[in-house]
């Protein structure tokens, strides 16, 4: 195995393009190293992206925030403007593993690892986050939901990597939130997760909403009927009940020792309802 730590994203892409055998990007390594140790993956080339300046920065951009592919979640939680503007995304990244894991784990790694239970992905999709994908020849900006195609699978080409993720500018009176259920209080993988983002008009009527479910299907689920139940309402009890039911109806979970199908379907609705209530509160508190 070869180890490289290039200084630019282009060089990283060129290394991946020219790799003999399997090339792998190394961000925080909290998935990759575990997989290498268990023999699940055996890369011929590792490209460490943490010496690339664009990968290490959190930068304001047109009212939004651009987060480099090498930024650990601990740095996100410490960033005041990020926590204030996109609390749902920050709280989802803050749920990943322990303090030690958060010192390394990145949003881009959580995304590109393509686990159906990845905590930050529903939260990013709910607010319309975009990934900047850089290849050896060209660069493209794509919605985060276009990256993961199935468990462990992404739409990235051999030479492509995610340089950064843009959290776009929030409309006025908007809020987001993410909640998950785990059987313990810390250090576990989601049995179900739900992210909600919503915007209000000046009268407090919901004008836009997205409800994204995690860990209850092979990919995230965009619960469109649930979002529709909120739009046009004041996010009152009746609307919340409708959205909760819509979430349970659309969930396609597996049955295993950590949660039965019925339980996951039920709990994902409860989580979505509670997340919507938090998002509502945040939207009312924001300008």
């Amino acid at each position, binding site marked *: 195995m070869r*180890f490289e730590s290039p200084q630019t994203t282009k060089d990283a892409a060129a290394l991946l393009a020219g790799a003999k055998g399997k090339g792998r990007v190394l961000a*925080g390594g909290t998935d990759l*190293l575990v997989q290498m140790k268990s023999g699940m993956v055996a890369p011929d080339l590792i490209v*460490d992206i943490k010496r690339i300046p664009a990968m290490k920065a959190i930068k304001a951009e047109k009212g939004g925030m651009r987060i480099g592919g090498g930024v*650990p979640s601990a740095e996100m939680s410490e960033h005041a403007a990020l926590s204030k503007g996109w609390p749902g995304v920050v709280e989802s990244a803050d749920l990943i593993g*322990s303090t030690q894991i958060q010192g390394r784990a990145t949003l881009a790694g959580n995304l590109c690892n393509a686990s159906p239970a990845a905590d930050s992905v529903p939260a990013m999709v709910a607010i319309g986050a975009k990934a900047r994908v850089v290849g050896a020849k060209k660069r493209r900006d794509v919605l985060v939901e276009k990256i993961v195609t199935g468990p462990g699978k992404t739409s990235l080409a051999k030479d492509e990597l995610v340089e950064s993720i843009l959290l776009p500018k929030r409309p006025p009176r908007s809020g987001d939130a993410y909640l998950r259920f785990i059987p313990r209080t810390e250090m576990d993988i989601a049995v179900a997760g739900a992210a909600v983002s919503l915007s209000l008009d000046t009268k407090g009527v919901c004008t836009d909403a997205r409800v994204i479910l995690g860990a209850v299907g092979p990919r995230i689920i965009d619960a469109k009927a649930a979002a529709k139940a909120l739009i046009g309402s004041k996010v009152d009890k009746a609307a919340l009940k409708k959205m909760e039911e819509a979430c349970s109806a659309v969930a396609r979970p597996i049955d295993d020792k950590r949660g039965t199908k019925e339980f996951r379907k039920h709990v994902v609705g409860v989580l979505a309802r509670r997340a919507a209530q938090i998002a509502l509160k945040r939207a009312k508190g924001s300008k």
Partner: protein
Amino acid sequence: MSQIHVSTTINGDEAEFLCDADETLLDVLRDRLGLTGSKEGCGTGDCGACSVTVDGRLVCSCLMLGAEADGREIGTIEGMAKGEELHPLQTKFLEHAALQCGICTPGFLVAAKSLLERNPKPTETEVRYWLAGNLCRCTGYDKIVRAVMDAAKDMRRA
């Protein structure tokens, strides 16, 4: 396989080593540099026995490659006591009997030190959450949490 030459700083001292591309920092510390204070409990990021700091940030050295350490500042348990003088956390762990077999202790100490550097006055809940990635099979955690709270109190007075 050709080895990688790495120059780094460990507990304030310059250090150099050669390692394989797939060798973890934990293996380098223990097997190449003789710094065996960091322990391997699981090797998968779950137990925290291998906790070190990298450029001031707490991480699991079992989930980092040795090659990544080039130019970084690494802090390990060996840098905690100043010669014969124990760090207040170490003293309090002894006073409170916050260890039995001791395999988790270096990880807990490194993690707790990193907490108190950021938050000199943590609540019990904050201590418990910060240390959630450190596992102990022996003590039941209570004595560890009390030792950390007590050390924090002493350090604030100092």
